[in-house]
């Protein structure tokens, strides 16, 4: 059929020039030698002037990591990673941590500006209504360069800073919570992260406080051959609430780069964390050259009664995504949510999903996953819903929809369900559809171009997830999705 042939040709012609964040910033960097040894771990810890217990924790992780092997169960394939050929630390050169924005290399501020993330509080204040303000922690390669609105947040008792600063200023809090959700030996990449994590964000919302603004972290990988190992820890005490968003981009480079993050969330009684991700790491070119390996462990622990953790993710980037933001529903009556849009195009491989572990009574969870595959990409949803013996009346609703564009891509759904209590109710729905030529033709008969028609249909497909994102980001995410799919139809 002529239209289909045209679609295939277009998909073949997909060009990475669509990636709008591929620029490189020229900054003088400080890097230890490539490779990973005990000395590397000691170097990182020393650079950050960490307490001794932190170094011991890292060294323990490193020793265990050496005995572990990479997981192979995901539906992704890539050449073996040479862990000795990576820089584990890269920081912009300066004398100590910047005390104010004036000490930050202007090139870095410029880079963030290009990405649409202003870091000068005055500039943010000028353009935005107070209720729409967002505090940003900007992580550039291995270090946090600035965290905005720290002072204002401190007035409300909220701690928002880089994890490095938290280790200096609130070591007891970090020590109490780090590794309690994702144990050091959880999995290969989490263990690696535990040994060499460099920076990330730390958030502490005290009892009864509703965080007065959105918090966000913007991760940028800039340096060549450098891994980014971020560590984020968010604690919401009794009755508190926070909405947090992370964004990520990287330059266009021919070699693959590793991003192995660990994110831990903890909610106490009646607390809520809403965690949103807009992931747009460089996906590689049309033939699968280059791009980020995004191997991430994200987990939330609903430790308290009636607490709630909600993950929303829009995944458009990375050559390979391996990521399962999960919830441990420990507190009675707690609730976990996972809303996901995963777009793959070109040669991208996505293996993503969630785990909802029901431990407490009357716990509920909801999973809405929308996978969109185009080009020659492979997109897998992998999910686990389990109920323990004591999780009486646990309920889960899962809906996984896949949309295929063209006929050279693949969508796969791998749901696991385990229930040890007869009172649990698990519902699962799954659909796979293609944007039909008939739908496209119908829209085009009304005057829409093939591209606009596809964008419209895709937007309809992901609507219920987009609605979960904070307003401003929903618009961004929508744009991002259409950019990611540019060139996928004739």
């Amino acid at each position, binding site marked *: *059929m*002529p*239209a*289909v042939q045209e679609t295939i040709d277009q998909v073949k012609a997909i060009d990475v020039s669509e990636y709008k964040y591929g620029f490189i910033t020229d900054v003088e960097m400080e890097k230890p030698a490539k490779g990973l040894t005990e000395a590397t771990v000691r170097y990182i810890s020393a650079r950050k002037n960490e307490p001794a217990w932190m170094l011991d924790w890292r060294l323990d992780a490193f020793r265990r990591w050496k005995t572990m092997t990479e997981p192979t169960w995901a539906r992704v394939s890539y050449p073996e990673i040479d862990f000795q050929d990576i820089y584990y630390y890269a920081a912009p050169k300066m004398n100590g941590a910047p005390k104010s924005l004036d000490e930050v290399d202007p090139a870095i501020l410029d880079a963030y500006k290009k990405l649409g993330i202003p870091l000068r509080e005055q500039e943010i204040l000028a353009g935005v209504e107070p209720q729409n303000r967002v505090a940003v922690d900007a992580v550039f390669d291995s270090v946090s360069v600035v965290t905005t609105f720290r002072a204002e947040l401190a007035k409300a008792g909220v701690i928002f800073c880089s994890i490095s600063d938290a280790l200096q200023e609130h070591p007891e809090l970090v020590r109490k919570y780090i590794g309690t959700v994702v144990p050091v030996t959880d999995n290969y990449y989490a263990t690696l992260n535990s040994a060499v994590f460099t920076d990330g964000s730390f958030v502490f919302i005290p009892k009864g406080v509703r965080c007065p603004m959105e918090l966000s972290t913007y991760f940028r990988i800039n340096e060549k051959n450098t891994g980014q190992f971020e560590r984020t820890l968010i604690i919401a005490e009794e009755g508190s609430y926070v909405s947090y968003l992370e964004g990520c981009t990287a330059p266009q480079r021919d070699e693959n780069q590793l991003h192995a993050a660990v994110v831990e969330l903890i909610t106490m009684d009646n607390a809520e964390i809403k965690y949103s991700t807009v992931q747009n790491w460089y996906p590689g070119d049309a033939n699968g050259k280059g791009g980020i390996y995004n191997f991430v462990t994200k987990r939330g622990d609903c430790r308290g009664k009636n607490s709630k953790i909600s993950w929303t993710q829009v995944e458009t980037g990375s050559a390979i995504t391996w990521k399962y933001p999960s919830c441990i529903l420990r507190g009675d009556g707690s609730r976990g949510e996972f809303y996901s849009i995963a777009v793959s195009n070109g040669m991208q491989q996505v293996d993503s999903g969630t785990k909802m572990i029901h431990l407490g009574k009357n716990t509920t969870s909801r999973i809405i996953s929308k996978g969109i595959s185009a080009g020659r990409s492979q997109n897998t949803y992998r999910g686990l819903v389990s109920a323990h013996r004591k999780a009486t009346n646990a309920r889960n609703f899962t809906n996984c929809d896949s949309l295929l564009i063209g006929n050279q891509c693949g969508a796969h759904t791998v749901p696991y369900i385990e229930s040890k209590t007869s009172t649990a109710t698990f519902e699962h729905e799954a659909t796979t559809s293609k944007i*039909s*030529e*008939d*739908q496209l*033709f*119908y*829209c*085009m*008969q*009304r*005057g*829409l*171009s*093939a591209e*606009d028609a596809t964008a*419209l*249909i895709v*937007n*309809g*497909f*992901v*609507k*219920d997830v987009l609605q979960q994102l904070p307003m401003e980001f929903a618009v961004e995410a929508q744009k991002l999705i259409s950019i990611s799919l540019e060139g996928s139809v004739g």
Partner: protein
Amino acid sequence: MLDIRNLHVKIADEDKQILNGLTLKVHRGEVAAIMGPNGSGKSTLSYVIAGKPDYEVTDGEVLLDGVNILEMAPDARAAAGLFLAFQYPMEIPGVATMTFLKAAMNAQRKQRGQAELTTPDFIKRVNKAAELLGIPKDMLRRPLNVGFSGGEKKRMEILQMTLLEPKMSIMDETDSGLDIDALKIVAEGVNARRDPAHAFLVITHYQRLLDYIKPDTVHVMSRGQIVKTGGAELALELEANGYRDYQSAA
């Protein structure tokens, strides 16, 4: 306005010939009806005129105001003023009808080099047309055609036809599934725009619609050809005798 010459069409992937040298003219201001047995190729004809990709034109041409449109993409044909009310309108999940209407109207305006409609202007137009067609407002907020009844889908096609203001409208069995009131409303919509700037090609199986829209011409289609052309009285004759006189003609 519409000039179809010796049109030969087959299914793109197969060797199945569906239109066999079809010739048909619709003049400015004319309402032409096509009647014909199931499977004679009526919908195929409407799809080929609108540019559906599954078909291959092996010979002949289709001119819209003297311009051969066969090489044009479907959206360009739409912008040139061609509208097809589908026999089976498509569902677009998650896309509110309002959103769809706005996207379609503005896309056509853009292709014609006109400015986008302002939101108040757009809403005014939609509300007016919806009221005339008896379409409730809450339906406009629902995803396009999803869960709509057969008749509601047809009304929605006419709403789009009204809003897009095409010069050449093809209506493929718009009357099937419509209740009497809706049928009258649709007919009124067509009759109101019977003027030298517009033309209609109405595909139907039933005389009933033609009672309300009195056609200038009636064409009988069989096995991919027009086998007889006459005035409004031809439809009455078909109603009485069926297609048996024409089945062997092709």
